[in-house]
């Protein structure tokens, strides 16, 4: 990494908001730091890699690469969504290369070792010679697909690649509690009209940082000013877990003449949600939004230090809502998210400036961003210190 100009000082990120600096440039541009963060921030935490609606039926399989790891999201015959390493236990061949339905078994295209959708190794053809499909040295019971720890929450498939994170319900307890009113609700994915992706030229963390603060709204989303002013928003900060923003003036999308609300509400919500909405970045990489009548999840899929794929899924309180209105709502959100692209890409470009020192925060407005930076810096520093201690011990 280039440290020739602005000093590299990760500890400065951990200072109180008014004194802190942001993450140094290398955390947005450097391949080595990206790899380090892929482990410390993406693999050792609970990260979102897909949504369960992408594998709606038993046998549906979705191959992905997440944090550099080839994984396979599968809905098994019993209907459980499972995540496996997408790699044959025989010769390390990638098993599934395109989203598809597994009709019977997951067959490796190389030597045809076959796995059930539950990961069990069920066939090892010719492993003991032609026509001999068993061998005493090949114990199928120990050679199932490597399963990755996963959890479905708010339809997001969360994975802990390292297997070392605290239990999901423990790690996410503060956010689950905050949105307890939504916990019992069924989320209905709005279908293809409610899914879109944005490929942006920025580090994934910039998408998080921009999402979780309201400071930029009057400048970047002027269309919101007419009813949603800056002072109608509040900060949300849960150190070590999530941060974001809320509004107290959410208005439901109105359908043309008659001013009738289009979408039904989630049942049993308190009055807070009549005009309230919250937008939270669940660390590391999932951006969530909740409203009385719809919700969404944005999955950030890092693709190297300077590229990110944003995958947006919108949900409703009931199935089979009118297509026109679902499309209109998706367009509304897409327009807002597209408005953000020039700032995240601009901040990425700005990280090429060697004199940029991570930046100073607004003590009044940048708390949620600092919360995220501090979370990231803390995890990275702990990892580096543990590695240093290990080296010293050796």
């Amino acid at each position: 990494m280039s440290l020739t100009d602005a000093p590299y000082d990760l500890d400065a990120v951990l200072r109180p908001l008014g004194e802190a600096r942001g993450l140094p440039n290398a955390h947005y541009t450097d391949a080595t730091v990206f790899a380090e963060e892929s482990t410390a921030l993406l693999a050792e935490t609970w990260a979102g890699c897909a949504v369960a609606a992408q594998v709606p039926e038993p046998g549906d399989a979705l191959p992905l690469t997440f944090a550099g790891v080839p994984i396979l999201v599968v809905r098994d015959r019993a209907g459980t969504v499972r995540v496996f390493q997408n790699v044959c236990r025989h010769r390390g061949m990638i098993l599934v290369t395109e989203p598809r339905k597994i009709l019977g078994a997951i067959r490796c295209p190389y030597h045809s070792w076959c796995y059930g959708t539950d990961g069990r190794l069920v066939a090892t053809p010719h492993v003991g010679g032609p026509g001999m499909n068993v061998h005493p040295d090949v114990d199928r019971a120990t050679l199932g697909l490597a399963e990755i720890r996963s959890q479905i929450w708010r339809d997001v498939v969360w994975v802990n690649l390292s297997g070392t994170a605290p239990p999901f319900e423990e790690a996410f307890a503060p956010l689950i509690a905050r949105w307890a009113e939504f916990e019992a609700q069924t989320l209905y994915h709005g279908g293809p009209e409610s899914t879109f992706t944005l490929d942006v030229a920025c580090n994934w963390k910039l998408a998080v940082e921009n999402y979780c603060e309201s400071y930029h709204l009057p400048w970047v989303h002027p269309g919101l000013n007419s009813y949603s002013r800056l002072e109608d928003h509040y900060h949300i900060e849960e150190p070590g877990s999530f941060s974001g923003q809320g509004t107290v003036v959410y208005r439901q999308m109105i359908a043309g003449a008659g001013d009738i609300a289009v979408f039904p509400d989630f049942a049993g919500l308190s009055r807070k949600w009549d005009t309230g909405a919250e937008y939270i970045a669940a660390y590391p990489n999932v951006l969530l939004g909740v409203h009385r009548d719809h919700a969404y999840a944005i999955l950030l899929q890092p693709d190297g230090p300077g590229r990110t794929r944003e995958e947006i899924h919108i949900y409703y309180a009931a199935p089979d809502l009118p297509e026109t209105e679902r499309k209109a709502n998706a367009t509304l959100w897409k327009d807002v998210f597209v408005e953000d692209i020039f700032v995240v890409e601009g901040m990425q470009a700005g990280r090429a400036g060697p004199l940029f020192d991570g930046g100073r925060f607004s003590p009044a407005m940048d708390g949620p961003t600092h919360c995220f930076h501090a979370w990231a810096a803390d995890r990275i520093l702990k990892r580096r210190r543990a590695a240093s201690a290990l080296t010293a011990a050796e």
Partner: protein
Amino acid sequence: MGEVRAFPGGEVKQCEARSFDPGDLPSLEARLLGAHDAGDKAQLSRLYAEAADEVEEAEAAAFFLTQAYVYALDSGAPEFRRLHARLKALGREA
């Protein structure tokens, strides 16, 4: 005359050279190649099962049965149970 073939971890076996060549049955071979080209796994399972029934030599039959079984597994064809049972009865499958 047979050949001596050794498989890692297994015993050295004396076996006859395969007495069946799909080329002996041009129509079956053609259909197998066609099914491979088409990626029609259910059809591959049926054709390999047919090949297994055509041969007399046990090892060749087990080979074709295995092919039939794997393509049945892959395609979710219900015949996989029957094919598995046949292989198991032959001591070729767990």
